[in-house]
């Protein structure tokens, strides 16, 4: 029963296609199963003409199908042609609903209930998931579509849009200008969508531009050949069946995430976290013998990596040992290691020496070290300075480092040896380095960037546990008693736990009994008091400081409410243990009391100028609570000359990253649309080539590795990233002054009809390449524009 193959590849994206092509090239019996009606659905769904990049440039391609950066259409055409040429046995519209069995005897169940048997299974389904279809008869009818490339293609049609999410609303809004649009919503509201989309669609419905069926769903779609309109969709509505003749049905119902399916195949995920991915061996094999996972699902989101893995996985199945494509790169990185012989030996040494890397599989280790750098600093060399803004993580392979802890006036040096790690404080808090680190003798370090480290933390619980533990004790020590060794704080550390708060959530409220201290490890909070029937914000407290000591020191109930300004994590320390520690340690007690007195005085002065609280509250609402540096314009000085924007344009390839006029204003304080350089930048969250970095001085910038995918633009809650093309030439001021022509500082519109040049993401980099600071501020003639950090802002404000 059912056909039988040596290799069954599920998913025809770059990874799966490359695997099937390699199998075809070797003449192995194979089948490539694709749920959709075309190859490579994720790329197929890119917008028309989208330019696809081929990062990382240094990695060589190893696949029977070719791939080079180019337009979506070109790439898809090449893959179709070449896989035809290789006689890849592909089956489209063949959704696999379940995989059972193990090496040599897999059984794949398809959506049409047919069964395929295979000796090996290669899972290359990516992370996009399967598109949810109508789920009723006729869901694949010719007039039913699941995406919308270009709304301007359609005119004077009757179009039924099914769905109530952002995609459905955006499609409906774009189409309703020139077509009759009917929206079908399964529920009675659109509250799953973004606030702006929700408001827009409700208004369009109220204005009669869009018709909406609430509490309704599709029952059947029917082609009506030869009639106009060519389709008919039958809806189940609250008041019975409705027949809608239409030209087109566009269903935007989202996608099912692949995790459930993958787990159904027997594959284990290391954590419950949504970003967690299954672990695979050095040969891409999962915990199910004979089931291999490659591509984005295995944690490799870039096309070239995925294609290489497709090639390699077939070689591994054949029992061949191929040198991984990244071998030369790793050799280049670790060749400098004293006594280097082979890459494998070097990797093994690193893993043996650094316990936090012990739980990694060989493949995870390779990728981790590929992202990392080997550092061999001279004795005494500074690895990073206190207050620098770097956020990488260091593991000590050999030798030692000296960490200078500053507490009050005293400095204390801590020495760390092989196997230990440092740099996790900035990694977790997103803030500046809390100490200066010097290299000791024979120092050998592995420096790992933030993203790779976060990936590790999210996929390996053991790593997270070790880091959290160490963070806890080091943070408590640094914030409360830097001059004491961690052992002295053991009783305090034992009571500590990590708590997470959503923006707007209270850590505690005014009047409550004080039973604990919160050390803020991530995010920031506001302190407010209830006065005259409203909350008056008194102060802002960033990560690295603590709140709640006032009630403990004075033994009175909480004197103020503390609220998370952004997503915040705190270390909660038990109040009794804290008091006990203070009782035993008079110098620490004296300092805590000093901070308490300062805070008390500050709160009193803040209460005397409640309008300041209004400004703090406003700024917090603009996301300043997670900012490290924000552009603020004093509108009473701003003469609206747009010098700031022109300066930005001129110094950044004719593309301004700043919109002065946009953005909210409170009294005279205007927050223009400009990057805030967040502590935990939202834009970094999902950057496939890891092109967004933080410079040592805190600037968050986008490197040339950008592939123009637009993820950062979508992830930025402040709308400060735009996609565009930088001009290579810069207008000359002398030429303009003498002969006219292109004026410096004006957007180069001629250049913006760029045709084939790919758009890349552009954002503020605080002019880090220019000495003297941001051009926008330097160019402001009246002093209206200033870039400040929240602490600076509040300190300066307090002097008043």
């Amino acid at each position, binding site marked *: 029963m059912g056909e039988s193959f040596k290799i069954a590849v599920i998913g025809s994206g770059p990874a799966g296609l490359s695997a099937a092509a390699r199998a075809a090239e070797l003449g192995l019996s194979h089948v490539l199963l694709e749920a959709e009606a075309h190859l490579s659905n994720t790329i197929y769904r890119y917008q028309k003409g989208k330019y696809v990049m081929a990062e990382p440039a240094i990695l060589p391609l190893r696949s029977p199908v070719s791939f080079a950066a180019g337009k979506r259409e070109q790439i898809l055409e090449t893959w179709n042609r070449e896989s035809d040429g290789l006689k890849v046995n592909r089956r489209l519209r063949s959704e696999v609903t379940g995989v059972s069995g193990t090496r040599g005897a897999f059984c794949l169940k398809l959506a049409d209930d047919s069964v395929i048997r295979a000796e090996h299974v290669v899972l290359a389904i990516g992370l996009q998931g399967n598109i949810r279809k109508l789920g009723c008869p006729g869901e694949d009818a010719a007039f039913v579509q699941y995406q919308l490339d270009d709304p301007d293609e359609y005119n004077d049609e009757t179009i039924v849009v099914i769905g109530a999410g952002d995609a459905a609303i955006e499609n409906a809004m774009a189409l309703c200008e020139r077509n009759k649009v009917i929206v079908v919503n399964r529920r009675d509201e659109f509250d799953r969508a973004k606030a702006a989309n929700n408001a827009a669609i409700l208004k369009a419905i109220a204005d009669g531009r869009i018709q909406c069926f609430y509490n309704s769903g599709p029952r059947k779609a029917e082609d009506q050949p030869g009639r106009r309109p060519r389709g008919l969709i039958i809806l189940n509505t609250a008041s019975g069946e409705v027949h809608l003749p239409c030209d087109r049905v566009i269903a935007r119902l989202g996608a099912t995430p692949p995790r459930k399916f993958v787990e159904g195949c027997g594959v284990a995920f290391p954590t419950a976290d949504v970003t967690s991915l299954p672990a695979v061996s050095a040969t891409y094999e999962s915990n199910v013998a004979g089931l291999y996972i490659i591509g984005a699902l295995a944690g490799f989101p870039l096309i070239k990596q995925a294609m290489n893995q497709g090639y390699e996985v077939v070689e591994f199945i054949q029992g061949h040992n191929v040198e991984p494509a990244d071998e030369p790169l790793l050799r280049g990185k670790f060749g400098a290691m004293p006594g280097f012989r082979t890459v494998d030996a070097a990797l093994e040494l690193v893993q043996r020496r650094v316990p936090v890397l012990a739980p990694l599989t060989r493949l995870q280790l390779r990728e981790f070290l590929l992202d990392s750098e080997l550092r061999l600093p001279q004795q005494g060399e500074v690895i990073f300075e206190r207050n620098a803004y770097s956020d990488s993580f260091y593991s000590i392979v050999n030798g030692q480092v000296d960490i200078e802890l500053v507490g009050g006036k005293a400095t204390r040096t801590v020495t760390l040896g092989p196997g230990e790690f440092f740099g996790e404080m900035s990694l977790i808090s997103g803030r500046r380095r809390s100490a200066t680190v010097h290299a000791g003798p024979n120092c050998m370090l592995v420096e790992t960037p933030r993203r790779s480290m976060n990936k590790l933390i999210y996929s390996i619980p053991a790593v997270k546990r070790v880091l959290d533990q160490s963070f806890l004790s080091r943070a408590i020590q640094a914030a409360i008693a830097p001059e004491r060794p961690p052992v002295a704080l053991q009783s305090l550390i034992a009571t500590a736990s990590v708590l997470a708060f959503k923006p707007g959530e209270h850590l505690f409220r005014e009047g409550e009994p004080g039973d604990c201290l919160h050390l803020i490890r991530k995010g920031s909070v506001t302190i407010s008091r209830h006065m005259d029937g409203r909350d008056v914000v008194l102060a802002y407290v960033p990560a690295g400081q603590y709140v709640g000591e006032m009630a403990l020191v004075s033994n009175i109930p909480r004197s103020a409410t503390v609220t998370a300004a952004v997503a915040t994590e705190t270390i909660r320390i038990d109040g009794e243990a804290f008091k006990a520690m203070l009782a035993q340690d008079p110098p620490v007690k004296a300092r805590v009391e000093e901070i308490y007195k300062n805070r008390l005085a500050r709160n009193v002065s803040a209460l005397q100028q409640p*309008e300041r609280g209004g*400004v703090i509250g406003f700024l917090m609402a603009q996301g300043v609570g997670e900012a490290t540096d924000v552009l*603020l314009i*004093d*509108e*009473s*000085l*701003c*003469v*609206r*000359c747009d*010098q700031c924007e*022109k*300066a930005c344009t*001129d*110094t950044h390839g004719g593309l301004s990253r700043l919109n002065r*006029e*946009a953005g*909210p*204003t409170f*009294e*005279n*304080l205007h927050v223009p649309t400009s990057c805030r350089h967040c502590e935990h930048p939202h834009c970094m969250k999902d950057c496939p080539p890891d092109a967004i970095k933080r410079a040592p001085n805190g600037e968050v910038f986008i490197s040339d590795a950008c592939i123009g995918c637009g993820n950062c633009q979508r992830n930025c809650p402040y709308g400060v990233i735009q996609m565009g093309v930088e001009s290579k030439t810069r207008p000359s*001021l002398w030429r*303009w*002054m003498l002969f006219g022509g292109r*004026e*410096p*500082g004006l957007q180069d519109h001629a250049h913006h009809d760029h045709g084939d040049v790919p758009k890349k993401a552009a954002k503020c980099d605080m002019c880090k390449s*220019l*000495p*003297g600071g941001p*051009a926008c*501020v*330097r*160019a*402001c*003639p*009246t*002093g*209206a524009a*200033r870039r*400040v950090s929240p602490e*600076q*802002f509040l300190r*300066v*404000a307090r*002097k*008043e």
Partner: protein
Amino acid sequence: MSTAAETRTVPTAAIHEGFLAHARFRYFKLASLLCVLAVAVYWWDDPADGPNGGTWLGYTLGTVGALLIVWLTLLGWRKRDYSSRLGTVRGWLSAHVYLGLSLITIATLHTGFHFGWNVHTLSYVLMLLVIASGVYGTIVYARYPTLITVNRDQSTREAWLAELDELNEQSLKLADALDTQVHQIIVQSIDRIRIGGGLRAQLFGPREPLRKAFAQVEKELGMTTRFMATKLRAQPSMRSLGPDESSTVSFMAGQLVGGSHDNESAQKLLDLVARRRDIAGRINRDIRLHAQMQVWLYIHVPLTFALLAALLAHILSVFIYW
């Protein structure tokens, strides 16, 4: 537009420092020192044929003044050289204002108070005009930004224009449901809204003042409703609703028909018209404030070039004919 709002002072955030106070008034102090020094030397110096541009002091003051004028002109270059590390534009502007003002003293002393109908005095007068326009600029830079902020009231011009469109659409819809004549009036009134325009309109408001245009709309609306009411009164059943000749537009609208539904629509329509007037007024005020804040530069800069030309003629003629 309430005048109370315009005069409201808005507390300034403490983190910003304006160009006048730049570096604790460094250039104010420098310029003052320069003036005091010049006056003192002028006082002390006693040339044989009285103070004039030809004495050693006259030449010195003239050279200092001419160099200052050339340097002051360079602000236009510095502010466009966006990647320049030569101080901040704010510092340059601060120095520009104070040293520019000091020119009054320096150049006046340079003349030795000799004036006549010649190219020399022309340069002097042009310089004073440039300075006067600059003083005006400094004043509007100090005053107008806050006026603009207050007028904006946290909105933006784009948002206003969108709302205006929206209000137009809504009022047309409402008017359409009421009566064709009302509809026509609204269409006309939409045509009559003037936003911005040429230089004159930008500086002093549109040629057809909005107030007048809207007064017209209200008058016509009133007449129509009155006309309608007369018609209605002709119907015996409506006779009891006798009109009041001196009534307001809203009263007339209320009289339009007996039915409360249309009554409500008419009221709403008038509210829309009023809101539209407010927004159109704000946009035009915004345009006007911007124009008035920036127009002086169109005098200041050409006058500067005229001054440079006259200065060149002055210097050349002095060297050739003296």
